């Protein structure tokens, strides 16, 4: 029931069909959904758990051809900005872009090549002053499932690799609420429950960023969740629990796994399991 609730809330009520046959025991292959995104003034940590067409670049998902992501025009325009982070060892920001007043190529000065693939998260900076006007976006695309063909947007199916230290990421599957403990995600305990899932490690930290005026902006916008021993010292759990985020909200995952005896970085894995068909 929880899976259904999460999945259905994530699909936001719109399920389309790519190949639908109205006969019993014949199911649609794909589910298509959309997500309405609110981008508050200041920084927003966003993810797109949908496979968009033709791609998941910001030129597609955050199309600025009409100037939606700038305030004013010409040289005096305040322009939205994005930052893409590459997880790995060492992790690093690899791309930064700003809305372009010429509106060319999706209206991004850097060409809009920054991606927000399922499982990835990027920073979006709304240039309006804190408390000012929000910006919006609507992400449309196919919902990733267990049977989604492996391609450049889902290189590891529904498995998100977590590298040592900082990772900027989101759920591959659209879901909101408790990110860690549900039947879509296998990341709620530290017991190995899948072929790749190692589970969180002691002192791992998830940072969720609140972009609303309530979040305070800047570093004060972070809420930290640490995987640590519970007060009764009976087991490890996320503290606070649950780890919550909205359907398009990304987060930092700080993995405490380091390197093995051969000096090779030790990765962790967040495995998700989702299919709309029985």
């Amino acid at each position, binding site marked *: 029931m929880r899976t259904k609730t999460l999945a259905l809330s994530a699909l936001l009520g719109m399920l389309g069909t790519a190949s639908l046959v109205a006969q019993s025991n014949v199911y649609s292959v794909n589910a298509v959904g959309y997500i309405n995104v609110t981008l508050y003034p200041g*920084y927003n940590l966003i993810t797109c758990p949908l496979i968009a067409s033709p791609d998941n670049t910001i030129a597609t998902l955050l199309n600025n051809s009409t100037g939606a992501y700038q305030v004013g025009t010409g040289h005096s325009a305040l322009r939205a900005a994005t*930052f893409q982070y590459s997880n790995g060892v060492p992790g*690093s920001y690899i791309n*930064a*872009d700003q809305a372009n007043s010429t509106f060319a190529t999706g209206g991004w000065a850097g060409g809009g090549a920054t991606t927000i693939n399922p499982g990835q998260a990027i920073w979006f900076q709304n240039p309006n002053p804190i408390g000012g006007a929000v910006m919006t976006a609507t992400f449309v695309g196919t919902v990733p499932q267990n049977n989604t063909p492996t391609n450049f947007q889902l290189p590891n199916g529904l498995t998100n690799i977590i590298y040592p230290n900082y990772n900027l990421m989101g759920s591959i599957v659209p879901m909101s609420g408790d990110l860690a403990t549900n039947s879509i995600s296998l990341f709620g305990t530290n017991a190995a429950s899948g072929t790749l899932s190692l589970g969180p490690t002691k002192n791992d*930290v998830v940072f969720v960023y609140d972009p609303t005026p309530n979040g305070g902006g800047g570093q004060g916008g972070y809420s*930290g969740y640490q995987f640590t021993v519970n007060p009764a010292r009976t087991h490890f759990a996320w*503290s606070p629990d649950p780890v919550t985020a909205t359907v398009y909200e990304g987060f930092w995952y700080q993995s405490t796994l380091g390197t093995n005896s051969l000096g090779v970085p030790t990765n962790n894995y967040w495995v998700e399991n989702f299919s709309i068909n029985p």
Partner: protein
Amino acid sequence: MKKTLTVMTLLAGAVSVYSQGAVAMNDYNGGSAGFEIQVFTAQSLLNSTVPIVDGIYAGFEEQGQTSNSYLANPGSTVYHTGAPLGPGYSIGLLALDGGGALLYSQLTSVVTLSSPINSWYNNATSVTGGDNYGIWNTPAVATVAGLATTASVAIAAWQNSGAAGAATTLAEAQADGYAWGLSNIETANLATGDNSPGYLPSTITSFSLAQTVPEPSTIALGVIGASALLFRRRK
């Protein structure tokens, strides 16, 4: 055998001394030829258009104008809104021996300065005008480890103290959540051996500190501390 080893060690030491490249970190030479730029506090979002990505830290800043004109804009066509740097900020050099770096992450901060650069021209010194000029006033020499006669270099500027204590390096300032910024990356000629160190490359422009993305590293300590406190209280 022992003698041979000793001689080899001494020779190696000699080679390393003469293979290190030096560059003068002077900014503003009394109006004479040399290196002259200004460094500013973070500019408005409107003027912060140059992306700066350095590992886990990122932001946008303003860069421009290859020589200072005493309180002029760092960019040649826009007006700065932030103040020039003064006391409370430090300057350092990032470098890659041999040159060729395109990314800040390719530069290393292991550059030795003959003295910390944290004093600035202001009204009390020789230049007339406002309170601070964004022009540092420490004639230090930077030594870049390596064998080459050129290096890719970028100037780093950062807030050197705050709630988290003193920050003597760019990395410390970034980890502490302090303001920081980087110049464009250019190629510097390094002096080796008995040659006098040359100036920083004149193609490095004035720049501002960055409007930075909130980074989580300083929060981590707070979370761990808060968790420990919570655990103690419940106990």
